[in-house]
């Protein structure tokens, strides 16, 4: 039964990664699409706390790093999403109380995650853009995630919460 629950979460992460590469390219703003995988990790952090979110972040990040058409150094998204999941999990008490705070948390997480990814790019000299351009990409990406969070977070929270009590019953 636990295997089935885990498989469901893996499937959700897969859908997020594929959707942002395949479906959202039609509505991208200068090529920037919403980071759905990051939203899923933040939702997991709100629902289950830092440890779970960090593990899920690692998995989602590795998928982002390895699934085509990714061509950057693998492990960069994994590192960014592990930290995002952990940090979001630490402040989840506020986000659980009000949906507004949850949306703000997604915005902050999106900023931290994309910035961390960009920073690792600068350190490794892997596909780094000029700073002004990088900031523009980060801002568009945060706006995208803020726009989708009010719709996605309640659904994801409902789903991930529902997976948990059943797991505890075993």
């Amino acid at each position: 039964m636990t295997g089935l629950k885990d498989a469901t979460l893996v499937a959700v992460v897969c859908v997020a990664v594929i959707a942002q590469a395949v479906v959202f390219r039609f509505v991208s703003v200068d090529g920037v699409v919403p980071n759905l995988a990051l939203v899923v990790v933040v939702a997991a952090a709100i629902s289950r706390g830092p440890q779970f979110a960090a593990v899920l972040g690692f998995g989602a990040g590795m998928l982002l790093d390895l699934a085509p058409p990714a061509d950057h150094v693998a492990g960069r998204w994994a590192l960014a999403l592990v930290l995002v999941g952990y940090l979001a999990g630490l402040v989840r008490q506020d986000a659980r109380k009000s949906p507004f705070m949850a949306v703000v948390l997604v915005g902050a997480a999106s900023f931290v995650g994309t910035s961390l990814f960009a920073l690792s790019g600068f350190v490794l000299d892997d596909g780094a853009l000029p700073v002004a351009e990088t900031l523009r990409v980060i801002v568009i990406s945060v706006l995208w995630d803020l726009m989708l969070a009010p719709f996605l977070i309640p659904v994801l929270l409902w789903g991930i919460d529902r997976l948990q009590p059943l797991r505890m019953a075993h």
Partner: protein
Amino acid sequence: MARRGYGGGPADKSRRVLGLLVLASLTVITLDARTDSPLDPVRSAVGAVVGPLEDATATATRPFADAGGFFRTNKSLRNDIATLSAENSRLRGQVSTEPLDRQRLAALDALTRTASETGYSLVAARVIAMGPVQSFTRTVTIDAGSSAGLAKDMTVLNNDGLVGRVVQTTRSTATVLLIIDTDSVVGGRLGTNAEIGFLRGRGSIGDSGRLDLELVDNAVTPSRDDVVVTWGSKNGVPYVAGIPIGRVESVTSSPRQSSRLAVIRPFADFSALDVVGVVVPKGTRGDRPVITEGGAR
């Protein structure tokens, strides 16, 4: 309580997990940063699973994406008419004033003719996924892979011009590095005077997607609107010769730099890539038809 049992736990344990995961990520980064990455088999294994899923999703969602065209408003169509009329009058002016262009055209024509005469074989493919720009690399996935005869370092082009090169293949998909990526370097040749140089991508797409051309001979000044084509390398790896890349938009030179920089506006529209052709060696056999001899031009 219920939550403590699974997610929260003692803060120590959760911190230990964080440490482990960060360490794991850093290990993966270190391993993959090498040129001969031990992660390549993992990458192609993931690609073999995710690639077909992306392909299926793209096929399922394509009709909805195409339907977007119906919702173009009357206003935007009117704008199009205004833009086109303006362009038309500009073109009319050019036709009457520039016999000089004919000379240019002849040179360019000769170059492009070599391309069609050498008879590249093409495999047609469609773009199914685009790498998000927040990953700061410009790549796309196409729906043809090694089973169609594709391999690393093959040239990818479309009706407008050069698109990029294949950097990775799985059985049914391939990853293409676009020429506007910051990692991409293409050898280019100016259409008028055959001077050679190197084109580097700037990493952004949309209207600001530009390439920088650095000429080898700094005594040469590229002229505006000059066409740049690929210079080609031995055996056509990674780029075959004579594929149009773009047009010179502006030229800058600073006393500090030894060579002149020209900004190139690529012919291909990278924000709306769909059908592309991959240049394959003659006699390639695969599960897809191979277009040969003047099919495209």
